[in-house]
């Protein structure tokens, strides 16, 4: 959760995925798209300014059960790519190949792609709804066509809920084990406010910040979203 001192609008902290972190230098990287006053405040923060950080919070992607030489798929919608630089680093270290599918409405949504040059241990596949960059169409469809003829051991995904809903169906059809980095409006980030709930299969609601944000799609009650 990130905040700027003394800020009352927006009032609450914001949850951001850690894009990358370097324990040696102590640097933590966040990839942020400016959409409102909160993100604008971060964008215009001068170098050396103070910010408040609470974290790391919640769970993480896991490579448990994967072996060197296997291949995984990583699917992101726009700024949903934010948590993946660190994952690609870990995959590379583990000798696991990964194809990166990045989608958006148009080429502008894909500007984040430049952050992934020389980071992905595999192919980068771009898709836009208007065809202004990469393949034309939904990234989920582009992924589905390739996944049907590629042996992926796991799917990692992050993006908006409609994208997840489509991916859940595809992953189920392919019996592809998946980890989704879910997005829900978080008030606190540590399980106190109970704002960031997602309808669950085994119980009424999953608490995204403490039980997630990484959740397996079969635990989510998509029909109640």
């Amino acid at each position, binding site marked *: 959760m990130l905040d700027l001192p003394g800020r009352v609008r927006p009032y609450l902290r914001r949850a951001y995925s850690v894009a990358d972190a370097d324990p040696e230098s102590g640097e933590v990287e966040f990839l942020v798209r400016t959409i409102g006053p909160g993100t604008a405040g971060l964008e215009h923060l001068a170098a050396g300014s103070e910010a408040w950080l609470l974290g790391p919070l919640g769970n993480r992607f896991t490579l448990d059960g994967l072996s060197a030489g296997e291949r995984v798929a990583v699917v992101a919608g726009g700024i949903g790519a934010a948590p993946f630089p660190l994952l690609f680093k870990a995959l590379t270290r583990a000798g696991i190949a990964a194809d990166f599918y990045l989608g958006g409405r148009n080429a502008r949504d894909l500007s984040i792609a430049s952050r992934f040059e020389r980071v992905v241990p595999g192919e980068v596949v771009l898709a836009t709804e208007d065809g202004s960059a990469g393949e034309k169409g939904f990234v989920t469809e582009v992924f589905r066509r390739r996944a049907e003829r590629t042996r992926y051991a796991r799917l990692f995904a992050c993006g908006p809920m409609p994208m997840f809903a489509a991916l859940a169906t595809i992953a189920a059809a392919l019996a592809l084990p998946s980890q989704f980095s879910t997005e829900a*409006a978080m008030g606190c980030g540590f399980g106190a406010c109970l704002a960031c709930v997602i309808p669950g299969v085994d119980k009424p609601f999953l608490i995204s910040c403490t039980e997630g944000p990484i959740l397996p799609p079969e635990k989510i009650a998509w029909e109640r979203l």
Partner: protein
Amino acid sequence: MNEDRKNGGAEIPQSPRPPVPQSDPSQPLEVQLGPLRLRNPIVAASGTFGYGLEFTDFVDLSRLGGLCTKGLSLEPHAGNVPPRICETPAGMLNAIGLQNVGIGVFLREKLPRLRELNATVIANVWGDAEEDYVTVVEALEDAEGLAAIELNISCPNVEKGGMLFGNSPQATASLVGRVRAATRRPLIVKLSPNAPDLVLSARAARESGADVLSLVNTFVGMAIDPETARPRLSFGTGGLSGPAIKPLAVRMVFQVARALPGVPLMGIGGISELADVLEFLAAGATAIQVGTANFKEPGVSGRLVEELGAWCAERRTPVAKLIGRAHRGDSSSLEAGAEG
């Protein structure tokens, strides 16, 4: 009989209480809140502090005056479908809908750990009907390590119960009377600022046996997406909290303290800084609750205890002397303004 019992004008059945001890000069932050003696006046508000255990990385719970649990019901409750919160200038709207683990899990899994941590625990309880409140309070009666019960008659985010009890003095009196008869514990009643006449509701709760009044819960509000013209919360409306409501809450504490002198009050509404604490104490609150600020700064309640301690030490003033300061001058013009 204690002095404050006479103020309601009727024989009030409060919980049995020991004689009020003299304030201890070595404990300048201690306050006597009706039958409750608190280490200090800083209490974490229900619905913003989980079951306390979520905050142990940020606050030493034994340092707080107390903590109010998430509103507990007889059975686990799922709460409302998301979106449940929406930010507003200097605050937020919420319609969580009283999601909670139920008293069974609370008693088995949460309370024993809170006891180990030496926390002063106030169980906030709610129900759909009078009977539910009574059943919950009875189930808590023998639990070890509960300092008090806080009745939530003011949640605006459920279809039944909640605020419906708080918005009518008759319903308040009936419910509080039944719960009073069911418990020997100190009984706190959390009032709704949405009641048509808060002083009437406060008097009704007090005369029916409340030892302490908490004021206020959230204000019913609404936010609409300007593009889609749909409410931003799935419940439609929500409860407004945060610094935005502080002046309203201060006025209400002042007003009730003036109308019912001697009735112990806990002030709530937008408290996040030491100055806010001092303001509510001056308005007549004996203790205060920190709410929404816990989300933004999880260590805020512990910080306020430290800052209040330093403030009192510097001025060699026990905190008890800060209560009701705003009433000691001639403040009639303030009251006229509030009612005009």
